């Protein structure tokens, strides 16, 4: 499989082409790739956007919400044109322990009108829409085509990609690899650290059909409003989490499962998901719904500490290929980070091309650091570890539910217990030391505060 795109493929050494086919080749028409291609095409450069699927989005799976603020910069009137399922006006974080649950529930009708906050959309529709913008700006979309290897000169400069088409070499002055979580191109360039499995989670998702009115009744929304629920606990002991999002006439329910934990647990993903769907707080929401699609995809969960080098020698990485997905408990955001990093990669590449040399890595990094992309990741660099830690995964949901149960249970004629006593009791009951609790609270505050 060395001549196909996979872990064993290697870069191909070529002579420096006399004239490149394109100013830039972007690999992968996900949000990162289309944003990069759009930015380059707008700056007047010739761009090929290579996608292995028959159409953009056909290979891609996510939970379901695009947070659109970064689109303001890329496509100013995006919310009038984007293919939207529902606008998120209600966000919940649900903590599960056994058959108990505690939910934080926030609603804002401000999010239901322009400029909006986030929306559910299917990737087949969203990615195709975004790639359409890149094409309209002049990028050449090359679908059904796998980039199998980097083309490199003997001195290590990246000058294009090999594809699986006959005579399929595409040469370019700069290559942007937006080839997602497996990023075989980034690995060929030696940019990735080892130990990928430890920082990777498997996402599995069921898309469940329900009548529109049923969704509105069960989730308490009307019209085009929708709900976004992140779930902590409910993964049958495998480190990870869950999600539940509303579309127009389907809901997406899924799990994110740490690979090492899943491999060890001896449980199958769809069994864990079936178990989650049986939880008394989840079941009434999904009851009776039919599976219209089952899907799976990997997520780079490690955040800042697991990021590869971001490029060099005529190559840049953006989006999941650079581990820029933010996955930390109450957040599961990757599309907006892919859009942002792709846009800045395209901008840095365009500036480099204009000034004659592709020495763009420094500028790319600067743009990322000035923006939310690296600012958020730096700030939250300890969050993925904390969220996937044994205590947060296995003990805190129980502790919090014990605490809530203690406060809400009325056990007259005994007097009500004080909060401090409840906390001590809940901590002891769940095997948490007060000192550990204080330390994690501090890490949490530093990250999230």
């Amino acid at each position, binding site marked *: *499989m060395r001549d196909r795109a996979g872990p064993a493929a290697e870069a191909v050494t070529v002579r420096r082409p006399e004239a490149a086919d394109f100013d830039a080749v972007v690999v992968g028409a996900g949000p990162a790739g289309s944003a990069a291609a759009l930015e380059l095409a707008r700056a007047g450069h010739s761009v090929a956007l290579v996608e292995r699927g028959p159409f953009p989005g*056909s290979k*891609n799976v996510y939970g379901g919400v695009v947070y659109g603020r970064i689109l303001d910069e890329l496509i100013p009137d995006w919310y009038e044109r984007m293919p939207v399922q529902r606008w998120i006006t209600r966000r919940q974080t649900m903590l599960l322990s056994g058959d108990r649950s505690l939910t934080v529930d926030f609603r804002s009708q401000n999010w239901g009108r322009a400029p909006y906050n986030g929306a559910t959309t299917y990737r087949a529709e969203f990615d195709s829409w975004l790639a359409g913008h890149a094409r309209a700006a002049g990028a050449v979309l090359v679908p059904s085509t796998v980039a199998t290897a980097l083309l490199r000169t003997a001195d290590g400069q990246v000058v294009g990609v090999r594809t699986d088409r006959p005579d399929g070499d595409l040469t370019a002055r700069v290559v942007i690899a937006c080839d997602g979580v497996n990023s075989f191109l980034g690995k060929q360039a030696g940019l990735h650290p080892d130990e990928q499995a430890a920082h990777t989670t498997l996402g599995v998702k069921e898309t469940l059909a329900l009548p529109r009115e049923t969704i509105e009744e069960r989730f308490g929304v009307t019209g085009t409003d929708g709900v976004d629920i992140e779930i902590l606990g409910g993964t049958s002991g495998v480190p990870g989490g869950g999600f539940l999002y509303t579309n127009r006439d389907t809901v997406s329910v899924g799990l994110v499962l740490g690979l090492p934990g899943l*491999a060890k647990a001896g449980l199958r993903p769809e069994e864990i998901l*079936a178990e989650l769907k049986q939880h008394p707080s989840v079941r009434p929401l999904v009851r009776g719904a039919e599976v219209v*699609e089952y899907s*799976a*995809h990997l997520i780079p969960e490690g955040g800042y500490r697991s990021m590869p080098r971001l490029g060099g020698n005529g190559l840049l990485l953006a989006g999941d290929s650079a581990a820029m997905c933010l996955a930390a408990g109450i957040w599961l955001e990757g599309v907006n980070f892919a859009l942002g990093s792709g846009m800045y990669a395209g901008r840095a590449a365009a500036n480099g091309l204009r000034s004659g040399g592709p020495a763009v890595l420094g500028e790319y990094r600067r743009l990322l650091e000035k923006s939310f992309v690296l600012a958020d990741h730096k700030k939250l660099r300890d969050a993925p570890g904390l969220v996937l830690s044994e205590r947060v995964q296995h003990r805190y949901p129980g502790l919090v539910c014990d605490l809530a149960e203690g406060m809400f249970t009325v056990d007259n004629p005994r007097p009500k217990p004080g909060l401090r006593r409840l906390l001590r009791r809940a901590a002891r009951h769940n095997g948490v030391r007060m000192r550990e609790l204080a330390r994690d609270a501090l890490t949490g505050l530093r990250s999230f505060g």
Partner: protein
Amino acid sequence: MTQRYGDIAFEDRMSQVDFRVAGNAHIVVDTDVCRSCTTKACVHACPAKLFVPTDDGGILFNYEQCFECGTCYLVCDGGNAISWSYPDGGQGVVFRHG
């Protein structure tokens, strides 16, 4: 196979997914290597349930209904047991609600 928790059967779950099956396999598993593997991590982790243990301790693998996710090569303990690649352009899984 089984219907746990009253959920749908695995074949029905997979039959909802659109696959453009290529003529040649994009993933090949060397069952000789698998025979000496003690974890068999792929069997549980593959979301499409494509790794089936055989009586002689090996693995029977069929590439046709693969999500192309990459889980198997990342969790595999057998070093070179799995030759992994994406299918040729345009082939393989096509998600509509991803």
